[in-house]
């Protein structure tokens, strides 16, 4: 299991479009992927789950990966968060 803490960078937060790109990317991996925000944990392969977080700019999220391809999944997802989903 891998755990990483990240902060939402883009101004608009984790709104519908970034949430969709996140779950699409997550679905490519076999590993389980969960996100914890302030003790509230959701399955990050579910678009509804990710949107429930309503994570705004500056929110701290704890990402948790577990499964056979957890390393690759973690790397790819972190890159997506780092890029701010291609938004300012």
């Amino acid at each position: 299991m891998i755990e990483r803490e990240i902060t939402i960078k883009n101004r608009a937060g984790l709104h519908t479009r970034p949430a969709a790109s996140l779950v699409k990317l997550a679905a490519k991996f076999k590993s389980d992927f969960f996100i914890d925000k302030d003790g509230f944990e959701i399955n990050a392969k579910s678009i509804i789950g990710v949107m429930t977080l309503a994570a705004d700019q500056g929110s701290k999220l704890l990402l948790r990966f577990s499964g056979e391809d957890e390393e690759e999944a973690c790397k790819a997802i972190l890159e997506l968060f780092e890029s701010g989903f291609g938004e300012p």
Partner: protein
Amino acid sequence: MGLENLKETRKQSITVGFLFERNKSRLKLSSINGEVGFEKEIRDKNIHRPGLALAGYVALFTYDRVQVFGNTEMKYLHHLSLAERIKVFETIFKFEIPCIIITNDNKIDDELVRIATERGVAVLRSQFETTKLVYFLSDFLDDQFSPQTVLHGSFMDVYGIGVLLAGRSGIGKSEIALDLVERGHRLVADDVVMITRKGEGILIGAGTDVVKHFMEIRGLGLIDIRSIFGIRSIRFQKRLEIAVELQEWKQDADYTRTGLDHGNISILDVEIPHVKLPIFPGKNITVIVEVIALDYLLRHYGYDAPKEFSKRLDAAIAEKSKGKRAIDYFEHDFE
């Protein structure tokens, strides 16, 4: 992925203001000293009647609970002189009391309210009698401080039974839920189900305020069940009674064949039946889920099909009857 190792959370505190806002109409509450002490925190789900503390015995005074002044406390205070009353109040206000609730719409001296205000403690008054107030307030506090968890699955009311459909992402939980809604059953929540333990043995599930009755169907996107199917297709909360875990069919997995050995699963320390359902193309899961709910109802009312069958088999073995036809003699039936 599923129902094990759930993360349990519970509220550490609520503010007096929150308690007042949520209960002012339900408990017919009013605040005597405005919004004084509304920011104070309540950390205990229990309520305290401070009779002994008023009488001067404060060794075991559970001061950090909501203090309810019923008729006993008020009558006791009123049999004292005003000077004595003020002294009693100054004694109990040496402790960090979260708030005071006076029941039966009883009167309280301005001097005592002034002491409470100086100490920044809210004095609330209810029109309810003490037993009624304690009952409703305990229930509210119990709910606020109860353990909660989040489940990933679809939560349905099927023939009045709360059924959680769990399983890995993309296995088709939402599609089965949609099919169940089509057949007249009601959706409670999809994908993010908040479970709360009520009392000691009951689990209640609800959706989140953001999602309500939205659902994602792969290849279609987000849909709103309430708008499409109307009010009869949804509900806001439901007791959770069965967990159905959808799994890919595996040749070597150990599925129950008789139903005598159904396992339970523990969610927030409450045991509920756990059905592991293998799925494969062409299998009508919706109908099976309906049957699971109906079978649960039968068991609830005392009829356990596998046990009945097993009893019959035992009887047949005892009588040494070997697979006889159920009907001794077929009369003519040429239809």
